């Protein structure tokens, strides 16, 4: 049955394969309530419900109902037939019985007739016969005997005509009937007539012959009521209503006052004798209801109704389900499309850190397929091997419940080897019962942004360096031009003098004049040099008393992003007490940044685990020391000799001014900048400054 599916869905969702699949597919978006996250599989479409699923039971039901109705109808019909048959039998019996009685009464009347008419006194036998005849059960209510001239001789019981009403009055007993009876020589029945008390009577005229001579007529008066009431046995009257109708169909006597249903089984026979169009109508009372079959049939009909109703309900329910499923599928397709189109990677883990779900964006981000990732436990294949410890720490921290709201930046390695910077936001996965089942993380690929930031920073640095270069270049160019002028003039004057001397025509006055001009130009050159000096002197440090620790901390803050980007570990050990120094803080900052950056540059080719920079400050008597140690490649002898020379550099993009400027700054502040090899490998730069008084 089609409804089976719907019921199964409702009752045992977990058992139903497609149901659970869809549930899993849904998991990421229902994750707050999801109890389990199963691997998402392809969703098989639900096969459409065949039409006959619904039609067959309906058809069967209709056929069954038709059969039941036919059965009921046939049973009823059969019963009616049977009843009708019984009715006919009974009616025939009754007719027989009536006729028999009337015949017997005729017989008796004819027997006693001659005596009644001929004898003055009646023998006791005749009296007994009369008495017998007038018993209520014979139907006779009066016996009259008439002589040959149709005159009433006597009657028993004697009653006047006053019971007669209407036209019957005086006409009963009817001479006409008498004549007929005398003519035919056998009993003749007269027509029925009404009497007082709404009764009907009819007479039987029995001609009496003595020998062949007609001596008179005995008339028996029957009461229809009496005949019908008294003469029928109890069982008959119990079953049927017997009524007598006149030719017009008017009921003139009835066995029962209770009216039977007109439409019900009835049978009509002519009531002959007496005849004259009288009819005897027998109507069956309604048979007592046979409750068992009725109940059974009712039960069947009721149950059939219940089945139809429940089927209808089921159908409604299933339709509702199907609509809900359809909506759910639509919703799921929508969610899946949404999930598929997301650029944000999603990854769910259980409380032990095992991956239970990943979305396509996450797979794309790290380059591993869903199958490779599901069930993976830390360390994950996409973790950066150089930062395993840090990543593991972040991972453990999240599992411990310390979730930073602003997200965590982590570096991952794509399957093909390139690195991804991801920003992770984690949220607890709570199932329907409110229990935490794991963590859901969303991953934003910020590689491009990070790269762009780094590029922007680099470009800014380069621009800065370039602008410094340009400034210096321009200054140098202007200086060169300025100096060139007097020098060129001096040279030309000199050459002219030599020309004169070579020619031998020496005019002392002229030469003196020219040499004077040479002296002036030399002084001019000297003035230019002095101007340059003045310019340089103008950029003297702006000294103030500052805490060296604070300056170094500020510098570390400045360079921190670069440190992180290069995967360098920066160890700081600053003196606990403040280190007051009388210096230009900006210049000191510049020295610190320069030294740390040089250290990092020196460790470019060193394994990441060894990329450590150590920054220390301490006081040594009246001298404050700031030390930067790296574990880089160190400084060879040749480089050591020239390291402070301007424009000496070992870096491709270096300008070669950094250490030179640093040393100048150190000297400006009355300090020193030196370096020595680091016993752990690398170099230690030491910057010393006098303690502020």
């Amino acid at each position, binding site marked *: 049955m089609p409804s089976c599916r719907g019921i199964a869905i409702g009752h045992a969702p977990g058992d139903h394969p497609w149901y659970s699949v869809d549930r899993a597919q849904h998991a990421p978006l229902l994750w707050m309530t999801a109890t389990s996250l199963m691997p998402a599989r392809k969703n098989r479409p639900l096969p459409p419900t065949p039409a006959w699923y619904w039609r067959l039971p309906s058809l069967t039901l209709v056929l069954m109902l038709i059969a039941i109705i036919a059965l009921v109808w046939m049973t009823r019909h059969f019963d009616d037939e049977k009843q009708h048959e019984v009715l006919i039998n009974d009616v025939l019996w009754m007719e027989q019985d009536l006729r028999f009685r009337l015949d017997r009464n005729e017989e008796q009347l004819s027997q006693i007739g001659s005596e009644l008419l001929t004898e003055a006194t009646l023998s006791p036998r005749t009296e007994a016969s009369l008495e017998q005849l007038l018993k209520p059960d014979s139907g006779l209510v009066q016996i009259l005997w008439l002589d040959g001239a149709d005159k009433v001789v006597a009657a028993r019981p004697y009653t006047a005509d006053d019971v007669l009403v209407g036209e019957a009055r005086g006409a009963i007993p009817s001479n006409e009937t008498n004549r007929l009876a005398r003519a035919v020589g056998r009993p003749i029945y007269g027509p029925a007539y009404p009497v007082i008390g709404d009764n009907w009577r009819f007479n039987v005229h029995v001609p009496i012959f003595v020998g062949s001579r007609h001596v008179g007529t005995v008339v028996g008066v029957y009461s229809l009521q009496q005949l019908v009431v008294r003469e029928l046995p109890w069982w008959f009257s119990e079953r049927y209503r017997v009524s007598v109708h006149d030719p017009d169909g008017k009921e003139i006597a009835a066995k029962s006052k209770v009216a039977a249903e007109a439409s019900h089984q009835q049978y009509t026979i002519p009531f002959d004798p007496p005849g004259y169009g009288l009819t005897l109508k027998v109507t069956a009372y309604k048979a007592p209801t046979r409750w068992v079959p009725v109940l059974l049939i009712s039960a069947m009909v009721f149950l059939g109704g219940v089945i139809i109703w429940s089927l209808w309900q089921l159908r409604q329910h299933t339709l509702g389900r199907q609509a809900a499923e359809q909506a759910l599928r639509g919703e799921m397709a929508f969610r899946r499309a949404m999930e598929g189109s997301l650029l944000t990677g999603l990854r769910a883990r259980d409380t032990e850190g095992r991956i239970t779900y990943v979305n396509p964006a996450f797979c794309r981000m790290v380059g591993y397929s869903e199958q490779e990732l599901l069930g993976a436990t830390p360390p994950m294949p996409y973790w950066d091997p150089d930062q395993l410890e840090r990543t593991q720490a972040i991972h453990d921290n999240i599992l411990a419940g310390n979730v930073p709201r602003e997200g965590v930046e982590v570096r991952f390695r794509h399957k093909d080897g390139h690195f991804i910077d991801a920003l992770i936001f984690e949220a607890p996965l709570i199932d329907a019962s409110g229990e935490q089942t794991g963590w859901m993380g969303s991953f934003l690929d910020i590689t491009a942004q990070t790269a762009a930031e780094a590029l922007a920073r680099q470009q800014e640095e380069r621009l800065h360096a370039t602008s410094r270069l340009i400034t210096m270049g321009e200054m140098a160019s202007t200086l060169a031009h300025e100096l*060139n002028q007097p*020098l060129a003039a001096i040279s*030309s*004057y*000199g050459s*002219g003098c030599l*020309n*004169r001397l070579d020619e031998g025509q020496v005019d002392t006055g002229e030469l003196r004049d020219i040499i004077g001009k040479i002296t002036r130009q030399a002084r001019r050159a000297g003035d230019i040099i002095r101007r340059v000096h003045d310019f340089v002197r103008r950029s003297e440090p702006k000294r103030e008393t500052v805490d060296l620790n604070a300056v170094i901390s500020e510098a570390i803050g400045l360079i921190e992003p670069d440190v992180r980007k290069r995967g360098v570990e920066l160890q700081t050990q600053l003196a606990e007490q403040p280190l007051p120094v009388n210096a230009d803080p900006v210049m000191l900052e510049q020295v610190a940044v320069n030294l740390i950056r040089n250290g990092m540059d020196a460790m470019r080719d060193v394994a990441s685990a060894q990329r450590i920079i150590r920054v220390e400050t301490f006081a040594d008597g009246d001298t404050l020391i700031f030390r930067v140690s790296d574990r880089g490649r160190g400084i060879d002898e040749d480089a050591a000799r020239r390291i402070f020379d301007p424009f000496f550099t070992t870096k491709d993009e270096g300008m070669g001014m950094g250490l030179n400027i640093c040393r100048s700054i150190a000297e400006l502040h009355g300090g020193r900048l030196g370096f020595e090899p680091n016993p752990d490998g690398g170099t230690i730069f030491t910057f010393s400054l006098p303690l502020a008084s």
Partner: protein
Amino acid sequence: MTTDTTPLTHIVDDDEAIRDALSWLFRTRNVPCATWESAEAFLDAWQPHWRGCIVMDIRMGGMSGLDCSTALRQRGSTVPIIFITGHGDVPMAVSALKRGAFDFIEKPFDDNALVDIVQSALEEDARNQARRTARVDVAARLEQLTSREREVMGLILAGKFNKVIADELNISMRTVEVHRARVFEKMGVRSAVELAQQLTLAGLYNTATPSAE
């Protein structure tokens, strides 16, 4: 000491010391010179018949040396220009030389080498001047020839004998000889070869030898 037609070395520099030093240097080598404190001042004073050469700083306050040379060339001057610069670079040199600079000298320079360059520039200018003068002279002489004499001259330059010329022009040999003598006399030459040389020097050889047909 100098007249308008004397070749002069014009020193154009905004630095007074340089101007003075250079003029002293040129004087010691007997190169007459004039000094100008700016390109504008020099252009204002410049006359088309001025001879000599120009020694000019490229970078000056106001008009630059390169712009000044362009202006001079636009006015039809052919005077050689020697540029001096303290910031000499290749593109500037190429640009300057393309505009017809005679030379390009970077500071600091060898002073007497500069004088040598100036002298060769002066010689170049003198040659140019001589060619120009010759052209004017020859053109004037050509003007004096009659049309018949021009015809005869063209045929002479074509290297034809008197007899052939007489046949071509349908005149007698005697008449050709008279015309020939007249042409030589008017052009101031003694032989056909000399005539050809003179015309070539003046750059008029082609105009003087119209097609004989």
